[in-house]
């Protein structure tokens, strides 16, 4: 069961080493896998930066692959690209970006726009 996330809410996309060139976020951080076309994010309303890092460590990282940080975007930035953010709270605060176009080049185009829309990057 999904719930709608408010347009002004912020979400964090966790970043791994292959998503970063130095402190620059690459578009691949926002390209969903072809098999399900959904992108995991964390709804960060009312969380501190430390809380978000802790969420990432708990739910986004795996034993052999730790998140390097996260990028914050507003939900309205996804809406601007005709995407939706669906909160399922599994795990708590988890949501998925859905509504991706069928064509890969269109998804790449959208991902490049999302990189430009990043409001904040927190590494480390």
């Amino acid at each position, binding site marked *: 069961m999904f719930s709608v996330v408010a347009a002004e809410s912020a979400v964090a996309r*966790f970043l*791994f080493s292959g998503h970063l060139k130095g402190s620059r976020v*690459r578009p691949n951080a926002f390209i969903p896998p*072809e098999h399900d076309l959904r992108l995991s994010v964390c709804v960060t309303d009312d969380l501190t930066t430390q809380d978000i890092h802790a969420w990432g460590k708990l739910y986004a990282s795996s034993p*052999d692959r730790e998140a390097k940080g996260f990028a914050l975007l507003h939900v309205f930035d996804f809406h601007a690209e005709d995407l939706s953010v669906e909160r399922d709270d599994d795990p708590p605060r988890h949501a998925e970006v859905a509504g991706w176009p069928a064509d890969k*080049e*269109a998804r790449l*185009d959208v991902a*490049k726009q999302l990189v430009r829309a990043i409001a904040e990057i927190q590494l480390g």
Partner: protein
Amino acid sequence: MTADTPWINVDLFAGDSSTAVGVEARCFATTEREIISEWLAAPITGAPLRDGLRAIMEAASETQRTNWDGNGAAPFKQRALLNAVRLLKRLPVTMPVDDVYVDADGAVLLEWQTSTKRSFTVAVNEHGELHFAGVFGLSRLRGRDIFVGDRVPESIRLGIRRVFDA
């Protein structure tokens, strides 16, 4: 490593190869060998191409294991990587690639960029399909093409050229 393979820093992969396991490790070693062979066959090597190849190998090194993104991503695909190498080798040195990375499906992405407002990205897959998107100020461009044989599609050349146009 022999003296006539000066472009590659074998130490770049030594740690990764020695700690990788099973099929993935063997695949990576095979890929490395194939790229080295292809490179040895190339008559001319310029610094931009060397940098591009090094970037490809770094991207492969980062994404050689399943779940490299913590979200179930596929490792880079060997054929995609080799197609990316073929593509780079056929581009003029005046079009140096700025960045190389891999997506969650194992495609290799080549990116040309002079600023966040001027960039062109090509996703190369294992079949030689090219999916591309560009940002040129307020303009956006996207499309797909196919890379077979020796000829880089005109759509790709034009997209890269637009990045460097003033």
